[in-house]
């Protein structure tokens, strides 16, 4: 194993050196004063890139100054380029508007300060920055006689508008979801937290993809150590590509071999804002609507944004229900196997008769039966998710018929098995954020149940609990606030206390700035009114 590891390391370092040769390393190479040199270099860099546009033209009416702009078609807003950049430079420019004679020396300053009617203009000196800017959708303007180029913010591409996310559907609450565009996402957060303390620290990850990643947190609430740790882990990532936040998740996880996520994700700005307000750090990645939040605790899987918007009694009821559903989806098939093959005495007599009767017609042991049904169910589920929607419906109909009816009447499996699998499947969707974990653990428990009954299940569960207890997410115990117990935080675990009762942020995460509201906010009738 060590050998394999060494070769892996070795080959990866080889790859690194090779790929370094592939990319023309022009980092730090300054721009030339000669526009021809710059032009050739740009042409060289963007050779064979059909979407790169390099447009040569001349600026000024009397003194002509050579210039060219570079942008990527499709990433820029053409209107900005044409109306705010090209038109002022080529048509509107004249000594009256400028106020003085244009020459090679002052051209850059004048153009930057007087001509370009674009809000975001920056100066750059080196080639690599120019290339990066172009690739990010900005337009770069090169002028003859100056070793500085101007970056005009012209980003504007076709993007999905803000839509209701499919993953976290709510009845009550904001329907906005994050989009693929980073700037939109930051805006969605900023709109919710109008505080200068909301910080967005930006960085680029991915050697090829150069993905923009933003670390967002609220200064004064988030623990600096966690922010620093997030930044440290992010800066460690040295890979080709970051296409989705899932990549990042796997690079920064605390327990990479675990079945369980130690990094949370959400598509909903209100959810992320709420988590940041509890002291968590969000990681926004360009190109995906899924925003990561750390630290992520086990109990978060059972919390939904809607819990906090609906009345506490029902919200608490739903919380409890989710825990029950989690246990059902985790243990139901295993418990069924254990009960029918090891501990029949526990079944009520009437049920035992019926189960025994339905068992008599089927060929497989209960364990095999459960395995078959579970695997068929997982296949159907996967097919239903991947297929286009109309076909997906067909799949579910076939699935329902085949699994539900035909399998029983054909005597392949017993009817009780179908019920168990259905309950399991439905319950699993209640706690959808750790659905993948429950699915795998379910098989694990089924194997243990099939061989040792309830002892197998429970010793496996004890092992799993040990695993949960041993995990940490960015320094925070994964099972907190249940273990180590924090009685104050239990207000938001199995129940959801009314807002006025939750004075403090979660102690394990928001300990830096614990008090989130005034005490004694419980609404009361005005006493003066009573006296009248």
């Amino acid at each position: 194993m060590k050998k394999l590891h060494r070769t892996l390391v070795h080959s990866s370092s080889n790859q690194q050196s090779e790929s370094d040769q592939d990319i023309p390393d022009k980092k730090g190479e300054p721009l030339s004063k000669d526009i021809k040199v710059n032009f050739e270099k740009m042409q060289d860099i963007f050779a064979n890139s059909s979407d790169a546009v390099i447009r040569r033209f001349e600026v000024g009416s009397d003194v002509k100054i050579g210039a060219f702009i570079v942008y990527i078609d499709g990433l820029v807003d053409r209107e900005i380029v044409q109306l705010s950049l090209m038109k002022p430079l080529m048509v509107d420019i004249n000594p009256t508007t400028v106020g003085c004679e244009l020459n090679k020396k002052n051209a850059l300053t004048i153009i930057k300060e007087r001509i370009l009617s674009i809000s975001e203009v920056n100066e750059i000196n080196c080639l690599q920055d120019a290339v990066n800017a172009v690739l990010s959708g900005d337009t770069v303007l090169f002028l003859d006689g100056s070793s500085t180029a101007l970056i005009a913010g012209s980003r504007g591409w076709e993007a999905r508008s803000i839509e209701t996310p499919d993953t976290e559907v709510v009845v009550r609450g904001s329907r906005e979801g994050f989009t693929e565009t980073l700037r939109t996402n930051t805006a969605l957060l900023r709109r919710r937290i109008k505080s200068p303390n909301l910080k967005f620290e930006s960085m680029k990850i991915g050697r090829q993809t150069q993905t923009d990643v933003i670390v967002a947190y609220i200064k004064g609430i988030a623990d600096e150590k966690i922010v620093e740790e997030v930044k440290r882990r992010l800066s460690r990532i040295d890979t080709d590509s970051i296409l989705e936040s899932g990549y990042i998740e796997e690079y920064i996880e605390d327990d990479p071999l675990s079945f369980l996520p130690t990094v949370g994700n959400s598509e909903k700005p209100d959810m992320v804002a709420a988590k940041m307000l509890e002291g968590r750090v969000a990681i926004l990645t360009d190109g995906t609507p899924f925003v990561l939040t750390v630290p992520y605790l086990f109990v978060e899987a059972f919390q939904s944004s809607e819990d906090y918007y609906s009345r506490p009694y029902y919200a608490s009821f739903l919380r409890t229900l989710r825990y029950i559903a989690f246990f059902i989806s985790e243990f139901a098939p295993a418990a069924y196997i254990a009960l029918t093959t090891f501990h029949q005495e526990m079944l009520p007599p009437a049920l035992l008769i019926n189960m025994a009767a339905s068992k008599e017609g089927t060929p497989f042991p209960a364990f095999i039966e459960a395995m078959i049904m579970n695997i068929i169910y997982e296949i159907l589920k996967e097919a239903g998710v991947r297929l286009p929607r109309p076909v997906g419906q067909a799949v579910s109909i076939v699935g329902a018929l085949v699994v539900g009816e035909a399998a029983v009447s054909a005597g392949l499996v017993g009817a009780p098995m179908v019920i168990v699998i259905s309950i399991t499947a439905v319950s699993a969707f209640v706690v959808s954020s750790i659905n993948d974990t429950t699915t795998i653990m379910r098989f694990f428990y089924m194997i243990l149940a099939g061989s040792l009954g309830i002892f197998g299940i429970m010793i496996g569960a004890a092992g799993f609990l040990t695993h949960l207890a041993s995990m940490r997410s960015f320094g925070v115990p994964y099972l907190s606030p249940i273990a180590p117990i924090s009685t104050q935080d239990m207000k938001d675990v199995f129940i959801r206390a009314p807002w006025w009762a939750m004075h403090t942020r979660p102690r394990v995460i928001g300990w830096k700035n614990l008090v989130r509201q005034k005490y004694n906010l419980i609404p009361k009738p005005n006493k003066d009114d009573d006296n009248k």
Partner: protein
Amino acid sequence: MLEDGKISNLQFICIFVLSRLMLTMTYLSYFKAPPFNQDLWLSALLSAPMHILFMLPAYFLAQRLRNMTAVQSAEVILGPAGKLVSALFVWFFIHRTAIILREFGEFFTSILYPETPILVFIGLTALFAAYAVKNGIETICRVAQIALPVILFSVLLIMALLVKNFDLRCVLPVLEDGIAPVIYGAFVIAARTGMILGIPMLLPYINIPGKLKNYLIIGFFVLSFYFCIIVLLTAGIFGIEQSKIIDFPFFYAVQLISVGDFLERIDVLFVAIWISGMFVHASTHYYLAVLGTAQLLKLKDYRPIVPALGIIIVNLSILQSENIVVFNKFLSYKVYTWYVLLFMVILPSFLLLVAVIRKKGADSR
């Protein structure tokens, strides 16, 4: 430090209470010990002060050398000769772990899985416990913190479900044979709490060691209360004479639960809940054995010896007695009480005495 985790007093009490309670709830035939009659519940109540008495030497020893475990302090106090005492402590924990695993194995093979080899239960529990041990005391404590409330609640639930079968007249006559057997009974109950030696082993890892005694005393009273419930339930349901001959009496009492006509024989469900407690019980002692060994051998990390020690423990567990009759003979109050007392009270008292004479360690004032 070998272990860099810190646990709270509450967590320590969780593992402490679980370590003692699980044995009574599953394996122990408590009626096969003095006072042999309906006064056992009085012994159970009296076990709290008895526990406090037994705790004193270990507790003062631990407080005197706060940043050292019992294994380390023996060496500091006695010099090179202390190695022998340290080794005895380590042996005690290894042997206890082996006994605990064997008890669970016998429990399961007797009640639920008569045809399964005992090695399966011992081996699997040891395997998962090894995983817990590898993750350190913090993890074990967190599991205990989750398991304990559930288990304590399960006993109360059992009590509520069994109350209709319960014959309160079972406590009469009180003090039939006088008070002496009752005190002896309390003595035997308290002497089974080998985890008392865990106090000097784990005190260095407790975040506020000064407050431990309050928690311990609460823990002892919780234990007393639950012993009392368990003893009364058994006696009230089976009668004294039957209780004396039934193995695993509390389990069989649970078997008699019958809710309505449909919920019967739900003992398996309760055993399922208890397994987590047994698991904590086993892992705690396993951990102490590993920690002690590592400190005895002055290792930098205890993790590498976890599997090796595990194999020794499993083998010891199986080889220590050839069948349940021999095993029970060793575990009977006549033998086991004194065996545990030697390690739990006599050795710490000796250490404490030498420490005071040789002025080792901080004065408790």
